[in-house]
């Protein structure tokens, strides 16, 4: 029995079907006497360079343990799966058990996005206040303009004199 980390980059167009793929992949692993100790669905991520004309990829990470000779069979099946644009199995001494930095980054990004969504209503409220202020200003403005006109008239009168 050997411990491995599996990284699989899915076609981003099929990322909505990622859950189905994970189920199928689990079945494939379990059929080949592999145990999954941890799985991470990182989600869509920008690729540093385009692979098969894809600029984004759906990253999946697995911590697995099993027989090295069976791994070749798994890899042979994965090779011809067109929904996978890249895969890698790395043998490791021990699984860290901690969340990978990729997952943490994607979570942080999601949180930031949520924060922005949460902030928007907060931003809107001041805007409404501003609108009210503007309304008030509108009320005030005519007076101002009138006063200005008065000033102008006065100036004209001055000039006339």
């Amino acid at each position, binding site marked *: 029995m050997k411990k491995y980390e599996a*990284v699989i*980059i899915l076609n981003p167009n099929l990322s909505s079907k990622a859950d189905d793929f994970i189920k199928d992949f689990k079945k494939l692993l379990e059929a080949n006497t592999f145990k999954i100790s941890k799985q991470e669905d990182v989600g869509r991520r920008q*690729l*540093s*360079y*385009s*692979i098969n004309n894809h600029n984004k*990829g759906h*990253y999946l*990470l697995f911590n697995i343990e099993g027989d090295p000779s069976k791994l070749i069979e798994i890899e042979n099946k994965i090779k011809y799966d067109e929904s996978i644009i*890249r895969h*890698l199995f*790395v043998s490791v001494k021990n699984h*860290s058990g*901690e969340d*990978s*930095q*990729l997952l943490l*980054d994607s979570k942080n990004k999601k949180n930031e996005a949520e924060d922005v969504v949460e902030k928007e209503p907060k931003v809107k409220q001041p805007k409404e206040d501003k609108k009210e202020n503007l309304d008030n200003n509108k009320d005030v403005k005519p007076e101002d303009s009138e006063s200005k006109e008065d000033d102008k008239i006065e100036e004209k009168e001055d000039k006339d004199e």
Partner: protein
Amino acid sequence: MSKYELPKNFNYTDVNILKQFITETGKIIPARVTGVTASNQRKLTKYIKIARFLALIPYTDMHK
């Protein structure tokens, strides 16, 4: 020579760490420049090469 402090456990998913040890053009910076210990430099090169394969960091700045 400046000494970079690397965490005890890091791997190829720690993209932000690995990015500090490649040049703008994507080359691995030699340990004599960064002052990283030899064992850490061996880990770095291994992880950088894995991360490149997984498109987490670029091989070069010439990618189309």
